[in-house]
């Protein structure tokens, strides 16, 4: 089982470009000596021009990096796990349960405050999921555009070789998948079943197995036709990739604009729940059952004392433990 990204580097892209350049060279020779009407292929400096152009065009389809997306997706592995979600839920349940037997305005405020945090946690989880869907879409697209480029080169070199060897017209289609449909398929797979937690490889497989293919035609009657068929297919491949990236961008803008700023998330806790405030009263946070006799008045009496002790400067030992050199 693979435990790393597909296409860990782009060395193969360089090899594929070299194969195309070499085949163009053979076609050019064939065109010249075969007198089959080659025009483009007689251009001076053809091969270096072809190589430069191929690098420029392929740089447009290498804008997303599979290993980089893989690593960044992996950073979220811990917070995607079921036990993480279970721990968050468990903590909320434990805190909520602890407040059930306490009564009054302050206890209600605590409960309401906890409700806000819980609401936030759910929304934040949804947004994290959106982030992971965007990363998964980018990953699948980054892999698919490379896979398709390889298929395109492999098929074109095969067709071109057959054309040269037979010295006759050759045509063949190549099935490619890159396009906005890939993004839609990833989103569909990531929002179904176990969601993004299944990981990038599973999502990638689920999203691309059934996605619709398109079939550019390769080959032709002359060397020029054969070469032009590759250029046209590459242009369409690049265009479809860029449209798919735009689709991710559009989704991301929607995700981003749907997120509330952190300053709007929480109201501060009111002073009635703050022991440091004179507004704190036992009656605002009292036990629903029966507390020990005189407990309420004891709380109100002890509150000032407790706050004064909390606010007192730390003693020498505490300061020394905190690393204060003046305490030694």
């Amino acid at each position, binding site marked *: 089982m693979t435990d790393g990204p597909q296409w860990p580097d782009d060395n193969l892209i360089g090899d594929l470009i070299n194969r195309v350049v070499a085949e163009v060279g053979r076609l050019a020779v064939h065109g010249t000596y075969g007198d089959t009407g080659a025009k483009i292929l007689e251009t001076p400096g053809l091969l270096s021009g072809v190589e430069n152009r191929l690098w420029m065009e392929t740089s447009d389809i290498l804008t997303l990096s599979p290993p980089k997306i893989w690593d960044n997706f992996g950073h979220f592995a811990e917070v995607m796990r079921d036990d993480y979600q279970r721990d968050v839920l468990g*903590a909320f349940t434990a805190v909520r349960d*602890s407040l059930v037997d306490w009564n009054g305005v302050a206890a209600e405020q605590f409960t309401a405050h906890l409700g806000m945090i819980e609401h936030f946690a759910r929304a934040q989880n949804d947004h994290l999921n959106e982030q992971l869907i965007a990363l998964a879409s980018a990953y699948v697209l980054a892999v698919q555009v490379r896979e398709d480029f390889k298929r395109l080169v492999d098929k074109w070199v095969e067709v071109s070789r057959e054309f040269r060897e037979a010295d006759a017209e050759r045509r063949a289609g190549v099935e490619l998948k890159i396009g906005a449909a890939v993004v839609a398929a990833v989103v569909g797979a990531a929002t179904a079943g176990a969601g993004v937690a299944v990981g990038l490889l599973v999502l990638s497989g689920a999203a691309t197995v059934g996605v619709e293919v398109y079939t550019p035609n390769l080959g032709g009657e002359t060397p020029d036709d054969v070469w032009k068929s590759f250029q046209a297919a590459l242009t369409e491949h690049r265009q479809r990739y860029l449209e798919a990236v735009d689709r991710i961008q559009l989704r991301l803008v929607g995700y981003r604009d749907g997120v509330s700023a952190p300053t709007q998330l929480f109201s501060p806790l009111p002073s009635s729940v703050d022991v440091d405030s004179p507004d704190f009263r036992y009656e605002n946070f009292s036990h629903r059952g029966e507390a020990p006799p005189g407990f309420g008045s004891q709380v109100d009496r*002890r509150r000032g004392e407790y706050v004064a002790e909390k606010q007192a400067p730390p003693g020498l030992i505490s300061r020394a433990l905190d690393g204060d050199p003046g305490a030694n």
Partner: protein
Amino acid sequence: MPDERAFDADLDQLTRAATVHLPALADLMSRQVGALSAFDGVAPSTMAPNVESTLYEFNALLRDRATTATQVVEETAAALTDVAALYRRADGRA
């Protein structure tokens, strides 16, 4: 006769919520901050597609939210810890 045992249990439970469960929740939220802070893009270093800058913006928003939420939970834990500590003192336990 007052049901002191229920009170004791509830005060202990309140103390655990303040000193164990809420800090645990803050810790869980801070792990999101860690994951979001580690984000370093989706493109090779020589490229800067629009989708990457939007991802950075989205990621930063989520990171800032998680940071704020962590602080809020910590403050909530501190406030509840004070209540529980005061009640323990008033009950003669501290």
